[in-house]
């Protein structure tokens, strides 16, 4: 299972990396929206994208819109993982094409990982034939 985690908080990245690696997942990380977009453009065979919203350079809303406007990328399951939970944010996620979101503080690490992997099962790239990319950030 290949997960792209786009998150700028180092502590949260460290915790999520450890949990997903413990579950035998390959995890790619990006610390801002632009880096996330670069990785997706170069390496679109991702099983699930985990996207924070408050990000430097390009924020999560903008990246979400770009992903949903891209024919290849829009079919990748995507979970918005944020600590914003107000109505404006939820409406903006839905307007940008997001379907699933989790509020970080409301879930344990175990629950977050389980829900993300559950969503990833929808991936159309479930049985990839192509070799693993060497990109590991």
């Amino acid at each position, binding site marked *: 299972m290949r997960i792209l985690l786009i998150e700028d*908080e180092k*502590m*949260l990245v460290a*915790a*999520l990396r*450890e*949990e997903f690696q*413990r579950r035998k997942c390959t995890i790619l990380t990006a610390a801002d929206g632009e880096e996330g977009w670069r990785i997706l453009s170069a390496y679109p065979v991702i099983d699930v994208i985990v996207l924070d*919203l*408050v990000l430097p350079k390009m*924020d999560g*809303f903008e990246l979400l819109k770009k992903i949903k406007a891209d024919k290849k990328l829009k079919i990748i399951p995507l*979970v918005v993982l*944020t*600590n*914003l*939970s*107000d*109505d*404006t*944010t*939820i409406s*903006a996620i*839905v307007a940008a094409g997001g*379907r*699933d*979101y*989790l*509020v*970080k*503080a*409301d879930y*344990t*690490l*175990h629950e977050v990982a389980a*829900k993300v992997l559950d*969503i990833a099962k929808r991936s159309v790239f479930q049985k990839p034939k192509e070799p693993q990319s060497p990109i590991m950030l």
Partner: protein
Amino acid sequence: MKFDFVTIASHQLRTPLSAMKWFLEMLIAGNAGRLTGRQREFISEIYKSNERMIRLVNDLLIVSKITQKNFHLSPHPFIFERMVASMVKEVKPITQSAQITVVSKFDPTQHTCVNADEDKIRQVIRTLFDNAVRYMIDGGLIVVRIERKNHSIALEIQDTGVGIPPQERSKIFQQFFRGSNVVRMRTEGTGLGLFIARAIMVASGGSLRFTSQEGKGSTFRMSLPVAQPPQTHSCEQPVPKRR
């Protein structure tokens, strides 16, 4: 995207709290090595405090929206009895550990469709259960009833707890109010739960009322309007929202 001050402040507070929560969880799970019983006990206490802080931030965010009259709900049709039954199941571990018996006096197979914000209604019910459990000494009984009328449905949660002194009954829906018997019991709490619960019920077109006898217990009754067609047709539609 532009956010108001409270939204950004709550985000900034929740982020380090999330990091603490997740790292403490890993410590408790033994990811960093086996803990002694005492270490586990201490870390579990820190975890509980962190959870309390997260709840407080969440509550303050809602209170701020209520007081600024910027509190919005996301209603959708759902089956009320089914939701209540799942809530009763959810609180079972807590009531069992507190030696409290929960008796459900309603038919969970009845289908009453209501059009309300399910997450928020669950929050109200959780608050009522939390309070019932918190203010009971040495176990007790919680009775859950549902009463359907023509255009409304009501849920009653009756407990055998300490009850509310008569002179404090007019204040219990005020923000930050905590009853004198409650303070004596040294229970956790912020005094925001019932304030938020009533605001949610009023914003949902319903109500939240109570009766109480000091030393014998309290009964909280929340009621909601029943959904009318065409909302009832979509009662089973999934909501593409928060997971």
